[in-house]
């Protein structure tokens, strides 16, 4: 009888689906361009933004492009990458991933446990569908990723200076117009984020991110002051994820 019960138990447990754990690429920096869709200029620009955002806020924001989802969902990848790399600080769980799979036309913003209040699903969804997807649809993958990173940073209370276009240095044009041109996308992002957020709950979020701005976290090691170079020595802080965020496709 006992033996039969043991067999029955084994039979019950054995066929459970194994946890989907895609073979995750090595974490080579804050930007892992495994699908090779970004040029050097964009890569440096984004890496610099990610590094200075982490220095100012303590939040680890990592961008990944994947060559292939390998049959798993982008949600599976988000969880496997976030937990596998341990993005975000241990205990604070303040990591965010922007995952793009150009071949599968899928993307996702994966939000760590500790940031689900600052970046609710609806906000992440707004960034995915209103800011990134339209650019991806028109074939502008680097532009979409750049704009998405800006929007995530602004949404989490960070600051974004001197925005995207490579041809931003035009010294002979000394009027106000290029200045405005450069900042227009930035202003639009803020407006969109505020609008999305107003709709969800009655504002008051800008104050709530300030605790993150104070710095003074124990973890050194990865936030070196230079930070513009290819992410040398960057590693996850041991943060965890619970499936927050939003996905989209184009």
């Amino acid at each position, binding site marked *: 009888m006992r033996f039969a019960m043991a067999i029955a138990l084994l039979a019950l447990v054995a066929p459970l689906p194994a946890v989907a754990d895609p073979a995750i690429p090595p974490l080579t920096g804050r930007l892992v361009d495994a699908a090779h869709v970004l040029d050097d200029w964009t890569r440096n620009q984004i890496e610099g933004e990610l590094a200075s955002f982490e220095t100012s806020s303590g939040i680890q924001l990592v961008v990944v492009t994947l060559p292939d989802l390998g049959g798993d969902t982008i949600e599976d990848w988000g969880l496997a990458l976030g937990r596998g790399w341990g993005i975000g600080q241990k205990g604070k769980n303040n990591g965010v991933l922007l995952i793009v799979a150009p071949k599968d036309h899928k993307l996702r913003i994966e939000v760590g446990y500790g940031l689900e209040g600052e970046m609710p699903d609806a906000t992440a969804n707004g960034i995915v569908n209103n800011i990134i997807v339209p650019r991806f649809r028109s074939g502008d993958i680097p532009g979409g990723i750049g704009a998405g990173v800006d929007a995530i940073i602004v949404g989490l209370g960070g600051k974004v200076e001197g925005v995207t276009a490579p041809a931003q240095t035009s010294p002979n044009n000394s009027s106000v117009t290029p200045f405005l041109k450069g900042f227009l996308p930035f202003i639009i992002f803020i407006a969109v984020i505020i609008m999305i957020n107003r709709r969800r709950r009655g504002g008051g979020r800008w104050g709530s991110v300030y605790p993150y701005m104070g710095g003074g976290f124990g973890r050194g090691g990865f936030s070196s002051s230079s930070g513009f170079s290819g992410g040398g020595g960057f590693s996850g802080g041991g943060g965890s994820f619970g*499936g927050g965020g939003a996905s989209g496709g184009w």
Partner: protein
Amino acid sequence: MRIFRSLHLPRMARAIAGLVLLSLTLPLIASCGVNSIPTYEEQARAAWAQVLNQYQRRTDLIPNLVATVKGAANFESKTLQAVVEARAKVGQMQLPADVLTNPQAMQAFEQNQAGLTSALSRLLVVSEQYPELKANANYQTLQAQLEGTENRIAVARRDYIDAVRLYNTELRTFPGRWWAWLLYPDAKEMAQFTIDDRAAAVPAVNFNTP
């Protein structure tokens, strides 16, 4: 203690020897897994609490969703009704205290939640047919929250499955088995999820029949 008595040591020395012996053996005992069972049990219970938490979060979203969808002109009432009924079923369910070690109760719980899962995803699929609803900002927010919650449920279930697998394995294998027999006679294996949430969630929708 008989050993010490036979050595004719003074009381004090005996007590000290006993303490030394205890302090030497305690870490040994701890390192060979005497704490594993309660530790794993706590982890599994925490994972279960997270599962309940996420399901509750979903349940809480539904009244808002139903109200928003109702606002859309002549929304298919059958689909809406199915969601309302499935939610009521989940709400009425009384979880027994021993649900974790009671496979029948666990299965009933799962069945009700799976019913709600498929009713909800059907609602989302049907909503695709209503452009004005899709353009509604309130609906978009709710949809994003609902999708996020479904994903969190999937993660919480996965974590629970892993935690229970660890705990049940500890109870069944050496040395956990012996420790359970010796110290934790009440420890019982926990019920696993038997229904695949994602498989249960795939809705069959036929737009041709009214």
